[in-house]
């Protein structure tokens, strides 16, 4: 067989190539390490404390839930500028529906959340329909949505709606909003077992089919690093005690992973799988690479666009629920400027704005980097308005670096 890879002459592989880890991803990890160490020093040792890291993961959740959807939107050569406003709008609906009368409708919180999600999905479907079937650029449709739904939120209620249902608040990671030490361990170990199993079975399968495999040491190194990172995450989450415990003779109760973080991890894990292993994911990338070719291959590009925006709307509404639950209220300004953080996370994570290229894992790290900057700058006392200046600069640098490295690769 001419195309059997094992017949290729052995070539010199660089260390990175042997590891099979994306260059861009590695740079991002490095940037994250630098930022974390920088803030650790600048904040006098507070940044990397269990308490702050726990808060950081909970803070990252809202952007983390949305960023994967944004990657898919951008990969398909679209953009969604409305997510911040739609988040505020859906959160307000969910809050009003569940808040007790006379302020709200006093509905069951699950019903309220479901209705909010339905609204988010409908808004997404509308965005996708207008841009795919009527040729209105998504940029314009969602810019209009940004204005309409922000001010729609103000029209529905110009003041803060709260407090909200106590069970609902669990979604935000507040009181009782963490899953505890045992479950954190169970989930952490399950993820490790899954990763190891995937690697081993994948390797056996590839060898059986005579495909090339990574060298054993490289496989072991990647697995080892992954395992250590997951264990470290579990230990840090369990080192933070539930507030009010562990002092004054009250026994310490480990907090464990916050529920919003769990939701974000589940969403990102699912999207990561979907983009790699399903037709739906494959078609999103095909559309981004060459919409005409996708069409000729029988892919219903227009309908796919509607689905992609619906997915974005769905994720935005879930993020809205988490954000409202976190604050135990919905405010008319909830989610303002968030579209920029989400887009920035995706772009910093290596998503190419002209479409066709991007990863969920990269975007997840991008989101973590953005919220690390926000958290760290807040910690060292930079005012909120000034934080946005730094975030804007970081976004600009990321896009610049992105386009430079793409030019070097010979891409767009």
């Amino acid at each position, binding site marked *: 067989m001419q195309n059997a890879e094992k017949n290729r002459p052995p070539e010199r592989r660089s260390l990175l190539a042997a590891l099979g880890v994306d260059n861009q991803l590695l740079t991002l990890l490095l940037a994250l390490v630098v930022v974390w160490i920088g803030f650790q020093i600048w904040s006098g040792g507070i940044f990397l404390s269990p308490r702050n890291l726990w808060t950081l993961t909970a803070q990252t959740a809202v952007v983390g839930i949305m960023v994967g959807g944004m990657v898919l939107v951008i990969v398909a050569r679209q953009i969604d500028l409305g997510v911040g406003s739609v988040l505020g709008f859906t959160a307000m609906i969910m809050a009003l529906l569940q808040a007790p009368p006379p302020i709200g409708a006093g509905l069951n919180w699950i019903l309220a959340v479901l209705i909010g999600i339905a609204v988010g999905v409908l808004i997404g479907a509308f965005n996708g329909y207008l841009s795919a079937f009527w040729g209105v650029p998504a940029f314009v449709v969602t810019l209009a949505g940004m204005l309409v739904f922000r001010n729609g939120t103000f029209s529905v209620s110009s003041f803060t709606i709260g407090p909200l249902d106590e069970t609902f608040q669990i979604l935000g990671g507040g009181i009782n909003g963490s899953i505890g030490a045992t479950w954190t361990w169970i989930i952490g170990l399950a993820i490790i077992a899954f990763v190891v199993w995937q690697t081993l079975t994948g390797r056996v399968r590839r060898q059986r089919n005579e*495909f090339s495999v990574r060298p054993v040491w490289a496989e072991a190194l990647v697995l080892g690093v992954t395992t250590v990172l997951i264990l470290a995450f579990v230990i840090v989450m369990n080192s933070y005690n539930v507030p009010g415990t562990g002092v004054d003779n009250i026994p310490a109760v480990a907090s464990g992973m916050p529920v919003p973080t769990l939701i974000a991890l589940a969403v990102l894990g699912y999207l990561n799988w979907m983009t790699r292993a*399903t037709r739906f994911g494959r078609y999103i990338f095909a559309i*981004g690479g060459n919409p005409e*070719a*996708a069409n000729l291959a029988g892919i219903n590009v227009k309908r796919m666009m509607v689905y992609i925006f619906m997915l974005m709307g769905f994720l935005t509404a879930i993020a809205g629920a988490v954000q409202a639950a976190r604050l135990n209220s919905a405010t008319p300004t909830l989610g303002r400027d968030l579209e920029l953080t989400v887009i920035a996370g995706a772009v910093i994570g290596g998503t190419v704005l002209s479409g*066709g290229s991007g990863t969920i894992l990269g975007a997840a790290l991008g989101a973590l980097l953005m919220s690390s900057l926000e958290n760290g700058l807040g910690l060292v006392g930079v005012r909120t308005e000034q934080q946005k200046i730094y975030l804007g600069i970081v976004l600009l640098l990321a896009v610049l670096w992105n386009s430079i490295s793409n030019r070097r690769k*010979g891409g767009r």
Partner: protein
Amino acid sequence: MTTPIIEMNNISLRFGGNQALDDVSVNLRPGEVVGLLGHNGAGKSTLIKVLSGAYQADSGSIKIAGQEVEIRSPQDSQRHGVETIYQTLALADNLDAVANVFLGREKVNGIVLSEDEMEIEARKVLDRLRVKIPSLRVPVQNMSGGQRQTVAIARAVYFKAKVLIMDEPTAALGPEETAKVSELIAALKAEGVGIFLISHDLHDVFDLADRCTVMKNGKVVGTVNTKDVNHDQVLGMIIGGVMPNVPNAT
């Protein structure tokens, strides 16, 4: 003589005030290469798009293997075993060779893509085409023009094309790669695939085609056996629309 695998009879198509195709009839037999020649705007691409399902004719009929068919979309055309390799190749440049070969027709196990199975199958078909592609798992944008062309051909061949439409297959290739594509066409012909070859390059057509159909201003000037004519006579047909004094080979 064998039944033509494709018969397009009296095809007409108007775009606004422009008669793009005017009562055009062509046919193609299994294992035969028919060159379609003509200036830009002569109507050859339009004709081919009618067959591949991108356009629908105003009047006329299409028979495939003797059966009258209706072709309303690229999928209809593919269902009847007609595969088109567009001049642009219609590849998703960001995806790898395996993904491109199977695009739109992926093998799945439940809802999960059967990547390994597709890679093995893609390899087999590329081996059959006797083309070497070092790795099937790099984006096709990193491949040479000839390799990309091969991926596009592999896509058509894998799905058992009975008829192949090739639009300017060698326009973007160097001499070596052109030779490779010529070999491929000869191999497919030997397997009984009928091929419509659209080309500007008379040398290509003379080397590969059994017959030539020349078009001008949306009409067929004539169809001739390649061995009956020389370059000048064909040029006369293309430029002047004059049928040389040789038997019509419809």
